[in-house]
Structure formats: C-alpha cells, structure tokens
C-alpha cells in the first residue's frame, strides 16, 4: 500500500490518488535533515566513504562557547560530540556534563526513529510539497501487522 495524499481544496474533489497494495520495507527518511543543533553553518567537513563528520562553528552565548561535531554513518547521525561547552563556572560545567549526553541521545533517537507522520504548524496546499510529511508520503510503506 502507499500513502495517499489527498488535496483538499474548494476546487478539487474526489479521491486524488489510487491505492496500490504493494508491501515493501521502508528505508530511512532520506529527506530528513539533522535536528537543529544550532543555526550555524558547517565550518569544516571531512568525508570518508560511509562515515562523515562535520564541525559546527563555535557559538558564544552568555554562559560560554558551544561547538559540536556531528558524525554521520550511512546517511544517519551516529554521534554528536561536544568540542566546546561552557566550563567557566562549576554550575555551567555541571550542566554541560549532563546536557551533552542527553542532547546526543535525543538527536540520535530523532534521526533513527521510524517516523510515520509529522505534527507541526499546519501547511497550506501550496506549502505541502515543501513539508516533511510530503517527504514521508513519498516513501514506500512499511509492512503492516498482517503483512
């Protein structure tokens, strides 16, 4: 079976797409960008065949400087390693110790989870093509419980 996007407008009526019931495993969400770590551009990139790392630029904030390195393996995030975290005072150092592994786990979980749908600010017909849900709708479906 395939996901069936239905365009709901005042001018379009009826079933917009035809169902097909093929059963095939679904790959990782190719269109899914890594979750936001910061809005900073990547400063350097080193590529090998299956493993890639990218370092974010160092972002200073009121507590100190934050910089992370993201490791991609086979197109998915496999690790988020802090290169610099605020250590200026004991409290910041303590928070950094807890926050870095938690951030890493969260990012990796969000990347590797099989996602069936996206909930977010609603899109219009025009905005749908650019939405993450549209990317998911283009993936072949996973086998169902009775497949």
């Amino acid at each position, binding site marked *: 079976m395939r996901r069936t996007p239905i365009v709901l407008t005042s001018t379009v009526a009826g079933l917009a797409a035809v*169902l097909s019931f093929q059963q095939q495993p679904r790959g990782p969400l190719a269109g899914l960008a890594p979750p936001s770590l910061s809005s900073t551009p990547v400063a350097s990139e080193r590529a090998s065949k299956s493993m890639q790392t990218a370092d974010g630029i160092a*972002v200073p*904030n009121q507590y100190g400087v934050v910089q992370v390195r993201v490791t991609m393996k086979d197109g998915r995030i496999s690790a988020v390693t802090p290169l610099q975290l605020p250590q200026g005072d004991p409290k910041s150092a303590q928070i950094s110790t807890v926050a870095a592994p938690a951030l890493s786990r969260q990012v990796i979980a969000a990347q590797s989870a099989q996602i069936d749908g996206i*909930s977010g600010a609603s899109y*219009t017909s025009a905005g749908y093509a650019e939405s993450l849900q549209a990317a998911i709708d283009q993936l072949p479906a996973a086998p*169902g419980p009775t497949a």
Partner: protein
Amino acid sequence: MGTVVSFEIRPGDESRHAATAALERACTILHAADDTFSLYMPMSPMSRLRRGETSLEQSPPEIAEVLGYCAEARRLSDGWFDPWAMPGGLDPTGLVKGWATQRAAQVLEDSGMAAAMVNGAGDIACFGRPETGRAWTVGIQDPHHPKRVLRTVRVERAIATSGTSQRGEHIYDPFLGVPGSHALSATVTGPSLAMADALATALLARGATGVPCVRALPGYDAFVIKARPQLQHR
C-alpha cells in the same frame, strides 16, 4: 485556501475493495467539512451563519455539533480557546480541522480496517498499530526549522500541534484582544483530535503555564516549545 490530508493505512483482513470504499467515504467527509466550515468561501454555511444571514437552526447540524465542542474546549482551556472572541466574528477553525480529520479516521476504523493514521496538515488521528509491537510514531516539527524534527512522540489516538512558523502569527489572545503567542509551538496528545486541536491552539496563546491544565484532563498530555533565547554573536 486548502490543505492536504495524508492517509497511511493498514487494511489487515479488510478487502482492497472495502478499504478503497472506506477511503472514498473519508475523503467525502473531509470535502463536506471544508464546504460547510470554510471561511474562505463566502457562501459556505459557516460564513453565512457568521454574517448573521442564517440561524444555527437553519445551518447543517454539523455546525451545532462543532460549536458544542468549541464551548467545551473553551471551558476546558480556561477561556484560552475562544472562537467567539475572534476579531472577525465566530471562528471555529481552531477545532474544525482536528474534528474533520478525526471523523475521517473514524470512518476507516468503523469499516474494519486494522490500523490507519490520518494526517490533516499536522493534526493526526490514528488507531491500531503500524506494525506488530510498534506504536504510531510522530515527529514534532522544529518551529525554527520546519524541515527538521525536534523529537518523536508515540501516539495512540490523536496529536495536534499549533505553531507560528508556517502561517505567521495567526494566534489570537482572547484576553488581550490582540494577536499574540507565548510559545513557538504547542503539542497536545489525547483521545479526541478535535479537543487536542483546540487545546493546542489555546496552549500556543497561553504558553507553558497552560500545560498543567491540559495534563489534568484524563488521557491528555501536552508540551510547548518556547522562544529560544537569543544567541549573542560576537
């Protein structure tokens, strides 16, 4: 202005013919809801009621049903969801999309389908399991980066997210009487998508202080994504 509804279905033992017929009924329901409630269509029953050209009794019964849910949502949200306090007049839009999406999912479930997820432009109703041992998993869009997922949530029946990222500031503060929002994004899960949709709208206006109000309702949970503190660039 229209939107797109996506269906993900697991027919199970249901025949292909029955599943297709159920999908067609679900689509009919969505189009009918659009025809009834659209405020972009000046002659829709909702637009005419809003202008005072018709009475509630003269309107399709779905309008009274939706306004009933709206009144309940207003009460449960301590007044933060209030279709009667909108600047242009009565506007149940904050609940209608969730209500219609939920009805579409209900039609599929009543047909005997094993599992399905119906995504009405970010408001999702589902039932069953996508595969054995796994719940429906929904990614929450990062309000700062619409192409990115901030976290994932396992959903049993319904999840709705209200945000300011895609349509601009469309949230109205019923107490101040001005457009406003105390969060970038608000998500509510629970048994009813109509209610989750309205509560997410309310929570976006109210901010994190409204989360306990939602969690107090049986079966509902909520979280908000607050404005990110400004980074100080050198």
